[in-house]
């Protein structure tokens, strides 16, 4: 029997898959830090946004709490917040990995190293 939580997890795993395979592209919106001592969002440094199937999604992590995923309108007002189910932190990790371009960066470093090794080998063989 599929429960409401199972459905939410299915949706989150689909978002993770879409993000990892590049079907969903997230953009980083940087927040200017506020000076409020009561606002829990004070420690939110980056908010990730995407548009998926006609809906705008916003993902962020406030201090001392689990990541928050929301459906928002054009003005950025939260229309619905996903309950804090398991998998949201994995979604955030995947989004950070993709938006920071970690894969490309690692490929670049490895590619550069291989190129250096090849040129060294060629110079030794001469």
């Amino acid at each position, binding site marked *: 029997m599929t429960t409401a939580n199972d459905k939410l997890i299915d949706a989150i795993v689909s978002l993770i898959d879409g993000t990892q395979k590049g079907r969903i592209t997230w953009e980083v919106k940087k927040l200017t830090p506020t000076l409020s001592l009561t606002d829990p969002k004070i420690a939110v440094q980056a908010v990730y946004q995407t548009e998926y199937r006609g809906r705008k999604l916003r993902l962020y992590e406030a201090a001392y709490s689990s990541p928050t995923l929301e459906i928002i309108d054009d003005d950025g007002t939260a229309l619905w917040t996903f309950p804090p*189910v398991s998998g949201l932190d994995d979604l955030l990790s995947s989004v950070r990995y993709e938006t920071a371009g970690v894969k490309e960066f690692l490929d670049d470093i490895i590619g550069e190293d291989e190129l250096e090794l090849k040129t060294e080998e060629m110079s030794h063989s001469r």
Partner: protein
Amino acid sequence: MCFGRSVLFEWFSLSNVGNAASILGVGLSLYVIYNVREIRKSYLFTARAPALLRSLHTRSSNINDLRKEFATSIEKIEAELARCLPILESLKRKVGRQERKSISDVVQLITANKTLSAGSESAVRDIYKELIKVEEAMRNLHKDKQWER
């Protein structure tokens, strides 16, 4: 009427009452054994669930991270899946029948995919999904158990 009353009176002989008490005693003992087992399981689950769930979460997050580079991470994913099995088995011994079934399903899924290949990406996705469903169910059960005490 009088006949019925005398038959009933005759039945209440010492041996018959003793027999009935023995049968009732066996029933009560079984009930107590069952309850003690359930209390023990519940106590163990409440005490051990947070650590086990943390371990399971680390494993499932690692699997998710490794899925990003699936082709080059097959061996590492196999190792992470193998690490999930004892955690799941341990959780299984501490929960009720309903939860045990969902854990058994994931264990079966992992056992069926012990050796992965380049084409196992969707199988790993399904396992990951089931792992976080189990994790969520166990987390909710743990919250419920806090109120039972």
